[in-house]
């Protein structure tokens, strides 16, 4: 067993175990932290496949941004764990049988014969000076420019939808309108009252 294989098995073991902990951990914060570990080790496996860009993007986007947001949400929400776990044991047999069945079925089709090393040989060594990031960028902005632009529109729709569903115009809040504030004139602020001078 060479060094690469050892590293692969190490990462895979950590990944599977931490993924298991994500669903079994009692504390949602722990579960989220285990998910971070899962993403991180998945990034390591991608690194082994020489997909550096994807590995780094996974760590930065998921671990750095998405999971932190997720942790915040978990901490803010008051999740009643007992209600979520209600009926866990009564559903377990059915769920386990179905899950096992699916795993077996998939293993029959996908097992070694078709997706093994014979069917899908490892890619050839690209040689010195090959940059994964550069190749990806080149493809993304030339051949795949159409789906790339479409994906940007999907994100725009997500933004519009989020705003449409959450933005509420409230009338009874006190806010400052900067434009009105700048455009204010002296007459709006000061009222000059002419009075007769009072003696004594």
């Amino acid at each position, binding site marked *: 067993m060479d060094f690469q294989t050892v590293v692969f098995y190490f990462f895979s073991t950590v990944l599977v175990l931490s993924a298991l902990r994500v669903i079994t951990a009692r504390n949602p914060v722990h579960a989220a932290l285990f998910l971070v570990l899962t993403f991180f080790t998945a990034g390591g496996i991608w690194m082994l496949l020489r997909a550096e860009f994807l590995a780094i993007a996974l760590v930065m986007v998921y671990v750095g941004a998405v999971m932190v947001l997720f942790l915040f949400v978990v901490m803010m929400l008051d999740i009643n764990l007992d209600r979520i776990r209600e009926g866990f044991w009564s559903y377990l047999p059915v769920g386990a049988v179905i899950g096992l069945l699916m795993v077996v079925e998939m293993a029959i*089709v*996908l097992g070694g014969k*078709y*997706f093994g090393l014979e*069917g899908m040989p490892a890619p050839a060594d690209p040689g010195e000076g090959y940059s994964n990031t550069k190749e990806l960028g*080149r493809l993304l902005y*030339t*051949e*795949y*420019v*159409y*789906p790339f632009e*479409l*994906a940007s*529109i*999907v994100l*725009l*729709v*997500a933004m*519009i*939808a989020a*705003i*449409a*569903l959450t933005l509420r115009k409230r009338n009874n809040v006190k806010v400052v309108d900067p434009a009105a504030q700048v455009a204010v004139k002296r007459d709006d602020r000061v009222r000059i009252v002419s009075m007769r001078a009072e003696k004594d």
Partner: protein
Amino acid sequence: MNFVIPDFYPAAAELFVVAMSFAILLIGTFVRDSRNIVYFLTQFTLVGAAAVTIMTMDGQVNFTFSNMYVDDLMGDFLKLMVYFSVAIVLVYSRGYMQDRKIESTEYYMLAIYATLGMMVMISANHFLSIYLGLELLSLSLYAMVALQRDSARATEAAMKYFVLGALASGLLLYGISMVYGATGTLEISGVAQAIYHQAANRTILMFGLVFVVAGLAFKLGVVPFHMWIPDVYHGAPAAVTLFIASAPKLAAFAMSMRLLVNGLFELADQWQSMLMFLAVLSIILGNLAAIAQTNIKRMLGYSGISHMGFMLLGLMSGVVGGDRHFALNAYSSSMFYIVSYVLMSLASFGVVLLLSRAGFEAETLDDFKGLNKRSSWFAGVMAMVMFSMAGIPFFIGFFAKFSVLQAVVAAGYIWIAILAVVMSLIGAFYYLRVVKVMFFDEPVDSTPLAASADMRVLLSMNGVAIAVLGLMPQTLMSLCAYSLLGSL
């Protein structure tokens, strides 16, 4: 590294819609009280897109964007139908949305992006573009269902739609990844070639096919992937239900054509038997469950399930024992069916919207009682739609059913044709019940109908179109066949 700038000409309509959407978004953001402007600009976008599509139509099959986009007659025809039905939906829904104070720039923006998603799906020649178009469409629809924020029912419907839709997208993606694993390409015509040259592993292809068909079945809403239809149709604001029940069906049909017929045609024997299963179950369950409904939106939902089953009957009778002579006839009958279903669906939900007013939803059968006394013209329109949906001659629905059934018989599935006829006879019961309620029962409330003039005119024309096209269905039928000719 030799990059050629893609040819934008075939995709001119998409580019036009995108450019207009950005303009409308800016106008909606910066102009005060912009709803009228936004509405008219949206309609202008749809009309303009139709003009651009017609101008760039040349009867050839053109590929662009590194073969990810295909421009053919089938695509052009379906796109024109999509613009047409979205425009009608917006006219019908305007008053309804205003009454409920949910008419906003965002509603029209989401409608435009849903249209764009459908256009992308219709013109896709690559699994990636199909998927992205589908997501664009579905995301917009989820948000549109949830737009009525204060209604718990709408929120629940949106949640259900979102979760199940995400699951279905996952199934579809999983299937696509298997097909990619077997053929090594994501381009639809490339997939077809790889399978033709026996370069792909059949077992993995089959495995992927099952998931692809499951994903498609969900999007079409056929049994056993129909659970979302009644709840979403019922819970969503009626205007959005109208949207979901019309144009996206055309896009789902186009997606099935692209994936199954253009891409996996070599596996026709396999997917035909899957579709047969789905179709038969949908026709049986849709018609039987609709009988029990008292809510008209749910009833139309179940009737939609059975109609989608009928549409699949055409798709499943294209290839008989390796003989492909029937393909054109069968697929064009399916296309004719889906086009006429969209016409009927528009009119039926249009009447539901017509009867609704501020603070009142006309959605139970009781609300249709005595419609004849309130407006005999619109009672007549609704009656025509119901007759047409039931497949009574001589309305368009009859010819739709007829052409699909003759394709089924030509393919030799006599028992399925008999079953379909028997089930539509059973289905006629709940359609005719609506007619009976409208004409022979006393009205429960006799508030005069309050709908804008443009809606009345369009709805009348919609109803008349169902009757007139039923008298001369030849034009539409041959249009379907002709536009399909180049894409098989």
